[in-house]
């Protein structure tokens, strides 16, 4: 079909190679870009945030449910604090809306009490037990049979895509390189230590490799002969509702948790939609993100226990993501088998929350392993502010259109996204290369018509900005081309020639 976009040549050597362009890999690359290091991040897909980072609950957990003393407990609380500090500067939308663990019985309330005690031990501020009346006053749509709740005011929602992109863009601005469409095919060792990474686009010499490959992390480890852990993909399905349903929940509403998961929740997104999910189903394939009819029924009935009146007619999309389940805790540290190979693996919940703290932890580990971390005085911790058109004042909007007429052309009508915003998302460092990449960055196509109106227009803009034919524009994955040339078109071109 369409020919591939000409990709920039890849680096031949680096101080650190980070494998995986999810939120964890990008946060690590961004943290390492503070120092005078050649940092290269490799991502096999055309864009960052295409695995677990694009299909999760988007919640910055307060940190009350992690077992004290674990990586999860430490990094969750630290990560949540880091987002509060850096999210705005990196262009990561974040809203501190608090979370409620909803209890239906005395037994549930007892669980909430123990979560409260655990949370205090983890250093989570502001936890309270609420009675049913207070809960109902806060959440008018909640089920009539609630007994109370655990309130965690520091819980927040965040845009997981823009978290990944924000870290990735900042890493690039500070000298890191992100090579997309670059799959890792081999890890070269010599004398039990990493010396190079083989990729689909060539070889990169490096003494340190960070494995942040998500559900693929065990496969990556095995490339170096490290079989110290396995990853079990656990699928979670979601239903997303239109923004008009935003009043359904003010805070993140969890059920009282079970042993295996935090359960099926009802929550606002950072953009004001409501979602329900996820369930938890162990699957065999690392790319099995199919939704299923029984799975969707399961999350609907689960969510109804918290909010009985779900506006199912206002569903705008369903999706599934994989959690990279490995064991009780994150796997963070040098491989027990290969020197220089550092894992950031088994990052399931609260992985999104922990990501920036994982970055710090990995930097410390690399320093301990002998990597010299010299602060780069030119490090800029923030990305340029790119305001949304709809959030600007009329005076600002007028000035913006005067400077760039494309700022006056609304491409996505559901979310009111202008052509200038889409162009900027493509041209930015760590820019969009696909339809879904545009959607993740600026929300064109993320609204109620799901790209029915703007899809053809965004396709044309991508083709123009990337300098590729329309037939080479992709939805998401390497070979997800959207359109074919019409039959006979080639013949007419032949005649013209």
């Amino acid at each position: 079909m369409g020919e591939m976009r000409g990709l920039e040549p890849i680096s031949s050597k680096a101080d650190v190679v980070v494998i995986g362009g999810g939120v964890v890999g990008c946060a690590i690359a961004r943290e390492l870009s503070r120092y005078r290091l050649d940092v290269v991040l490799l991502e096999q897909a055309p864009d960052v945030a295409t695995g677990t980072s694009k299909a999760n609950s988007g919640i910055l957990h307060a940190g009350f449910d992690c077992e004290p003393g674990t990586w999860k407990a430490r990094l969750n609380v630290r990560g949540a604090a880091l987002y509060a500090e850096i999210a705005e500067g990196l262009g990561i939308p974040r809203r501190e809306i608090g979370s409620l663990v909803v209890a239906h019985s005395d037994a549930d309330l007892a669980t909430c009490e123990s979560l409260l005690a655990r949370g205090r031990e983890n250093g989570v501020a502001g936890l309270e037990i609420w009675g049913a009346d207070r809960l109902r006053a806060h959440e008018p749509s909640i089920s009539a049979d609630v007994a109370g709740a655990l309130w965690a005011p520091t819980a927040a929602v965040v845009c997981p895509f823009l978290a990944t992109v924000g870290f990735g863009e900042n890493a690039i601005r500070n000298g890191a390189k992100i090579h997309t469409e670059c799959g890792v095919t081999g890890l070269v060792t010599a004398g039990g230590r990493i010396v190079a990474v083989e990729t689909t686009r060539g070889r990169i010499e490096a003494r340190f490799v960070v494995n942040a490959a998500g559900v693929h992390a065990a496969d990556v480890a095995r490339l170096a002969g490290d079989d110290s852990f396995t990853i079990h993909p656990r699928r979670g399905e979601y239903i997303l509702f239109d923004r008009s349903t935003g009043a359904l929940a003010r805070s993140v509403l969890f059920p009282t948790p079970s042993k295996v998961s935090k359960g099926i929740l009802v929550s606002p997104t950072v953009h004001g939609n409501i979602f329900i999910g996820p369930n938890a189903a162990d699957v065999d394939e690392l790319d099995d993100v199919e939704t299923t009819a029984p799975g969707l029924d399961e999350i609907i009935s689960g969510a109804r226990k918290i909010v009985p009146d779900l506006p199912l007619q206002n569903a705008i999309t369903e999706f599934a993501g994989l959690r990279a389940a490995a064991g009780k805790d994150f796997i963070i540290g040098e491989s027990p088998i290969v020197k220089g190979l550092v894992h950031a693996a088994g990052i399931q919940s609260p992985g999104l929350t922990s990501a920036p703290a994982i970055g710090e932890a990995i930097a410390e580990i690399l320093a301990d392993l002998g990597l010299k971390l010299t602060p780069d005085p030119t490090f800029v911790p923030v990305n340029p502010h790119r305001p949304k058109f709809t959030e600007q004042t009329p005076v600002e909007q007028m000035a913006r259109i005067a400077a760039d007429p494309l700022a006056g052309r609304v491409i996505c009508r559901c979310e009111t996204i202008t052509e200038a915003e889409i162009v900027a998302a493509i041209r930015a460092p760590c820019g969009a290369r696909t339809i879904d990449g545009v959607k993740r960055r600026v929300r064109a196509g993320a609204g109620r018509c799901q790209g029915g109106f703007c899809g053809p227009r965004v396709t044309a803009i991508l083709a123009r900005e990337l300098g590729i034919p329309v037939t080479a524009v992709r939805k998401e994955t390497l070979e997800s081309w959207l359109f074919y040339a019409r039959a006979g078109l080639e013949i007419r071109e032949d005649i013209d020639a």
Partner: protein
Amino acid sequence: MRDATYDVVTIGGGPAGMAAALAARQAGADRVLIIERDRELGGILQQCIHNGFGLRKFKEELTGPGYADRYIEMVGAAGIDVWLDSTVLAAEAGGRITCVGPTTGLATVEAKAVVHSMGCRERTRGAIRIPGSRPAGVFTAGAAQRMVNMEGYLPGRDVVIIGSGDIGLIMARRMTLEGARVRAVFEIMPYSNGLTRNIVQCLEDFGIPLYLSHCVVAVHGHDRVTGVTVAEVDADLHVKPGTEFDLPCDCVLLSVGLIPENELGRAIGVSTDRITSGAVVDQFRQTSKPGFFAAGNVLHVHDLVDLVSNEAEIAGRSAALFAKGVFGEATHERAVIAGEGLRQVVPQRLSTLEKGKNAIRFFFRSKAPMGPSIIALKTEDGIVWDRKLRVVKPSEMIVADIPVNRFAKASHIEFVLTLDEHPEPLEGAVEEEDA
């Protein structure tokens, strides 16, 4: 910022907006503006390159762009202002409209009356929860139609169509003519949701099978669609276990319904009809917000553009009279009830009747397909009007012009649709559907 004042502004320059603007001019509005977000007028007509338009309005068979061109010429000759490439961000109560465009910049318009003519959008895969993966190759039929007919690209070569709405049927034929293989159309209901003429001309003439009472239970594929799993459903629309079968394809087109694009109406709080998803209007097409009128697919989804034009003429004329102060805000004093057998009726309210008006046109949809039927108007005095219908389908709107003197004084106004126990042999259709 550009500022302007108009008597009547139509939001949307498709068939409804153009007809409303023209009618407003003809009814004496001096300053009329059409605000259109696309690069040309015509709306969805511009991508409907098949014929079948205009049989009533122009007494000839036109293509969609042909029908649009007739109106574009009339709009040009009528001294109506047109802002293209302009998107309305807000239209507040009182008539202050904010819009934005690359050439207009950010502009505010003061309108004495506003016609909502924004059209509709397509229901998506997400809205009907089709499970499976999310590869490239799943499109709504209208988006695919735009790519084929306006941009010149094909969305697939081996196609399955979900839903038998008219756009899906039209696209089944279009994709076939473009050399693609169209495997089948799957409709979850036990009857088709398109016009009979489209079933015949777009499917039967090309040997494309239509499976009724079937739904797609999974979409497969990682990069591109590789196939779908289909199953039969029972009367409650539940999948019959064991009836599943797989069908390879590289493209899935969805034609599963249209939804009025009524966000601007909702934003100012116009009363909305739960069934149509459009505004509640009176016979003048005035909404519950004074000076805001609605017509076309933003009000209720139509089958025939000719009827959109007719309805928009009512709204445009009323808007002009409102702008001139001839009549005021809607009184909406009497409810019109869609009773037994009927899913919806437009208008849903009657305001004070206009002097000298002999008949009012009502639009209906039935709940289910029916054979010979009778549609009747019941008031507190019993049945005061009725008409025989040879056949009824939910997909084909019933249109009736009902003499005002039958219900001028009635307080209860309810329409019912019942089976005709004594059908007469009929020659040709008495109902208003297009042949």
